[in-house]
């Protein structure tokens, strides 16, 4: 276990280092003098001079990177020019909203994707299989911001059942919170449900043709017991680990979904930062996202290692 962990940890260090170079390099794409661009439209000379000194712009590029990386390692992702707040504080403030949205989306994705994948595999080649595949293809091809607008049109404008936009904290009013989050969560969960359905289908097909499932059937066990107890249990391992990799889809989707439903989360933070030319926030969000993704990947690998006895031996 410790050898596996050490080896796995050793590979993420250079990856994180390259991520940091990539994020730092983004700043170099800014046309002209970064201090002038970051100082905003007024180009206040004192602000420009302050930025120049703070960002060490008179130093060579590698030296600037080392200064920047030193700050990042101390938890300093820079400061938002627009909101006059540390980027880490902004992320900490917005993240809970997106975590709630993502958690609800995952529950919806699991509730749709896994049963659809099981049905599709068990009834392979039948109308059920084709229907489940069609739903998956629909999920993969629908732009989620459009789906969001269409749901608003149906459930808010036509039926008047749900609010079209806005966010209510669950600590203020749980009912209103759920009402405002259910549509965005469905939009976000929809694409992931499609991916989960495809993973579940292929994992189940593989497991259903294995010897122990044949043995279970030969013992005369009820088909439902065979599918749910014998097959699904083993098929779930790769589904869950592959599902962890959908984190990227979840965050990318959150950017657009939060924009459509005006939810003040992590996704909206990056979009607002882009429009306010708040580049430190953009960099901070990208770095934070990549680090979380790499950590989740590591946890998925460790989970796979722990639940798969063949890997341990």
């Amino acid at each position, binding site marked *: 276990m410790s050898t596996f962990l050490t080896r796995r940890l050793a590979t993420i260090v250079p990856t994180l280092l390259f991520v940091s170079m990539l994020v730092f390099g983004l700043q170099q794409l800014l046309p002209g003098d970064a201090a002038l661009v970051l100082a905003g439209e007024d180009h206040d000379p004192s602000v420009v001079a302050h930025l120049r000194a703070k960002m060490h712009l008179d130093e060579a590029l590698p030296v600037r990177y080392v200064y920047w990386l030193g700050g990042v390692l101390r938890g300093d992702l820079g400061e938002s020019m627009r909101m006059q707040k540390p980027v880490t504080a902004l992320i900490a403030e917005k993240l809970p909203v997106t975590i709630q949205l993502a958690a609800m989306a995952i529950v919806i994705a699991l509730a749709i994707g896994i049963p659809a994948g099981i049905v599709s595999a068990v009834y392979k080649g039948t109308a059920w299989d084709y229907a489940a595949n069609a739903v998956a293809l629909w999920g993969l091809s629908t732009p989620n911001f*459009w789906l969001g607008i269409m749901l608003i049109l149906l459930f808010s404008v036509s039926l008047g059942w749900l609010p079209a936009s806005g966010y209510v904290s669950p600590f203020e009013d749980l009912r209103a919170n759920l009402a405002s989050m259910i549509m965005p969560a469905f939009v976000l969960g929809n694409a992931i449900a499609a991916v989960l359905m495809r993973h579940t289908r292929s994992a189940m097909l593989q497991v259903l043709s294995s010897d122990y499932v044949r043995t279970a059937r030969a013992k005369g066990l009820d088909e439902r017991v065979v599918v749910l107890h014998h097959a699904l249990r083993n098929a779930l391992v790769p589904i869950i680990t592959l599902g962890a990799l959908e984190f990227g889809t979840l965050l*990318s989707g959150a950017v657009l979904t939060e924009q459509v439903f005006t939810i003040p989360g992590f996704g909206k933070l*990056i979009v607002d930062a882009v429009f306010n030319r708040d580049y430190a926030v953009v960099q901070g969000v990208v770095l934070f996202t990549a680090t979380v993704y790499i950590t989740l990947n590591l946890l998925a690998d460790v989970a796979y290692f722990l639940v798969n006895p063949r890997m341990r031996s």
Partner: protein
Amino acid sequence: MATLAFDVLPRETSPGQRALSRLLRRPSAMVGLVVVAAFVGLALAAPLIAPYDPVATSWSAIRKAPSAAHLFGTDELGRDVLSRVIFGARASLLAGVVSVLISLSLGIPVGLLAGYVGRWTDGVISRVTDAMLATPFLILAIALAAFLGPSLTNAMIAIGISATPVFIRLTRAQVLAVKVEDYVEAARAVGNPHWRIALRHILPNVVPPLIVQATLAIAAAVIAEASLSFLGLGQQPPAPSWGSMLNTAKNYVEQAPWMAIWPGLSIFVLVLSFNLLGDGLRDALDPRQA
């Protein structure tokens, strides 16, 4: 006698012909191909087909519901939605194809280099690829487009660069599998230089999975361009783009739902068609997966 014996043998077909015949036997892939071709035709002939100028405003026709004069209705500036949807196909297809061409032209040489040369070159390239893959595709594209500045060209560059690591990784994996084949060993044994082995003997054999991935990547790029335009980072107004049309439409869902329905439906149908075509190509080019 010899002639007769040859006559009864099945006619020799090339792998390409066999793949094509497998593709033609898949109705869903054919539907995808026809719809994609229709969209390409629409984009090319837009000035001839579109009933109105897509950027011409009309104060007397603001947010008019679909009618005989405006089949898809009009938008908040009185522009014809149908004409904008037709011209919008240009931005979507252009972004889809150009960004994937950028990814291919960067990803194939770098992946070939990593897979063929190996050692520390592979190590460095693989770590950079991992770093790029660690950043969600759209977030990386948004960040790049934000720093490059909002425009359709920059959106295409941002999408192209963000999609490159997938092609590097795929090319590298294919090269690693192919470079140990006997025919590559033979090419090396007869004294071919490295560049010739890589370009003439390895590259042609790694192309089929790249074609499949490229088709699916176009679908992802079309959605990415629409997403960036929806966020205001792609095609700039007044030029039409499905994403930017949806961005405006979301403010008028109650008063003019038709503004949102048609551009979104167009993205959906085009992306679905590329996905159907990509799935069909995968089955045709790699029969083991079918």
